[in-house]
């Protein structure tokens, strides 16, 4: 490993003045320190790197390999022996005129819509709740705990409960909308047709917004109170403070948070799987279940892997663009 003594451009001016300590020391000690210090970051990274290598990168390499194979049930016992498929699996997956390709494209678009809505609302609810509970008031601790509860409950049971609530005859949602409030003229199907999409979004938001709340709440603690006090002296009201101090200070946290939520939601398998089983209704046929069906149900792991690789490429692209854009904005801000 080569170590540069030159540093990257220090982000946000954090690096100024490093090395002041060593500079007051004799030359030989300083060189020794430089080497140690140069190696130190790598040492810090080593455990993380080794673990990621073992659990993610090596299996991933094989996963990608499999996507070029005809790994059907006839070969899973001896997957190395499966015949090569070349780009065959990919060709089927991207052939939007074929049954499999067009279903995949549909599922992909559904997932994009689902992800945008679910992440948007999760982030919104979490941020609003965190900002509104920033000041202390009576019952704040209780509220914080209540808000975190959906996150603590096991996914399986939570989704089951929602599916009970969305039942046609016996569900709470129809009871509330139809019998109590009289908003709908007749009960609706929530787990069939277009409503199933919104049912999925609602459950996903319910499960994930507490996490957004948690992160933003932690992020808010890092804002120095002096900033607020100074702006209050300048006559800024609370709304202005939120706009001018709170939101800009949350940028770093938000950048990570939105990406976490995005990837979670996009890859979420458990929620749609428990809600709909192996075959989701077409308007809510999100890609994770779709791929599960393409590989585990039909036992065609080669094709499932090819679809997964396509999805991986998409996610990498989105993340790259997202990071470039948000980092530039953060720097400009």
């Amino acid at each position, binding site marked *: 490993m080569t170590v540069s003594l*030159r540093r990257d451009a220090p982000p946000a001016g954090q690096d100024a003045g490093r090395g002041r300590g060593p500079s007051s020391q004799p030359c030989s000690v300083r060189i020794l320190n430089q080497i140690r210090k140069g190696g130190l970051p790598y040492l810090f990274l080593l455990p993380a790197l080794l673990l990621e290598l073992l659990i993610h990168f090596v299996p991933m390499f094989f996963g990608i390999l499999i996507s070029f194979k005809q790994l059907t049930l006839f070969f899973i016992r001896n997957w190395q022996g499966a015949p090569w498929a070349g780009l065959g699996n990919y060709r089927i997956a991207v052939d939007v005129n074929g049954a499999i390709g067009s279903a995949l494209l549909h599922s992909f678009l559904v997932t994009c819509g689902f992800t945008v809505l679910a992440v948007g609302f999760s982030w919104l609810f979490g941020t609003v709740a965190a900002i509104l509970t920033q000041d202390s008031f009576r019952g704040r601790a209780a509220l914080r705990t209540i808000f975190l509860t959906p996150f603590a409950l096991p996914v399986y049971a939570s989704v089951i409960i929602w599916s009970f609530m969305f039942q046609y005859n016996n569900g709470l949602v129809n009871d509330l909308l139809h019998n109590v409030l009289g908003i709908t003229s007749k009960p609706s199907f929530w787990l069939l047709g277009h409503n199933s999409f919104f049912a999925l979004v609602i459950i996903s938001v319910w499960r994930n917004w507490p996490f957004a709340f948690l992160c933003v709440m932690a992020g808010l603690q890092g804002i120095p109170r002096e900033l607020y006090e100074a702006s209050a002296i300048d006559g800024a009201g609370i709304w202005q403070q939120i706009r001018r101090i709170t939101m800009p200070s949350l940028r770093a946290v938000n950048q990570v948070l939105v990406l976490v939520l995005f990837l979670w939601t996009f890859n979420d398998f458990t929620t749609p799987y428990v809600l709909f089983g192996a075959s989701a209704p077409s308007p809510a046929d999100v890609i994770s279940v779709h791929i599960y069906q393409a590989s585990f149900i039909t036992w065609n792991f080669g094709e499932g892997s090819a679809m997964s690789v396509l999805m991986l490429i998409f996610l990498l692209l989105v993340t790259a663009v997202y990071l470039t854009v948000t980092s530039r904005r953060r720097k400009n801000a």
Partner: protein
Amino acid sequence: MRRRHRGLNAPPLSFIWTRRIVLTALTIFALVPVYVMISSSLKPLQDVTGTFRWIPSPITLSPYHDIWYTVPLARYFMNSLIVSASAAALSVAVAIFAAYAVSRYGFRGKRIFTVAVLSTQMFPGILFALPLFLIFVSIGNATGIALYGSRGGLIITYLTFSLPFAIWMLSSYFESVPQALDEAALVDGCGPVRALFRVVIPSAMPGIVAVTIYAFMTAWGEVLFASVMTNNTTRTLAVGLADYSTQNNVYWNQIMAASLVVSVPVVAGFLLMQRYLVTGLTSGAVK
């Protein structure tokens, strides 16, 4: 006199009312399913899927008794606790060092490292599940360390699931700790590690707590890998709850009761953690 609100002035009425309305709405949204869960857990089985009633009429506590016998819930709970707590603790420990390196040092390959680690979060589980099982089995055959089916294997797997974001989130929390603080410590003669432990970690405590909760919950709720990588002695709750759904019957009321019972310690943990979530910069900034 404690002064907790941001400015010097009390917030205006418009803010207070917005707060009341919005927080009430969110409370209802968060709690209604929890309420349904509680009421379902108190119903006799034949009533659970029956017509919805806001107040269940025959109430029974027997599900809370039966949950321990239908399924070895206590064992599943212990497994989940051991696996999730170990994975979270190790993940945060590994991530703290990595995040410290990323946030405080410039070094060659930094960008590649962060991007590569982050990209692992995008790997669809389905894509590397089978290869991972194969690798664990071959490690087991070669070294005799049984990862496949053991809690150890699960812990390692889960810790890497939360690691990428733990590193990233922590480095952004670390970045928000003013550099001047740990520089002051370095000047005082602390080494980087001591500066990390004395200054950076205490200052970033809310972030660390949030990340710990994240790592814990990632492991707590994972289903796909647990379903294959556990046997009946190492089974975790997330998959074990499905055991209430049997060939002939699905014990809905027991599923709900069990979920509530196992969530109580988790919520209690959140409550305890809250203390650390709201202290932070203030306590960290002073020596």
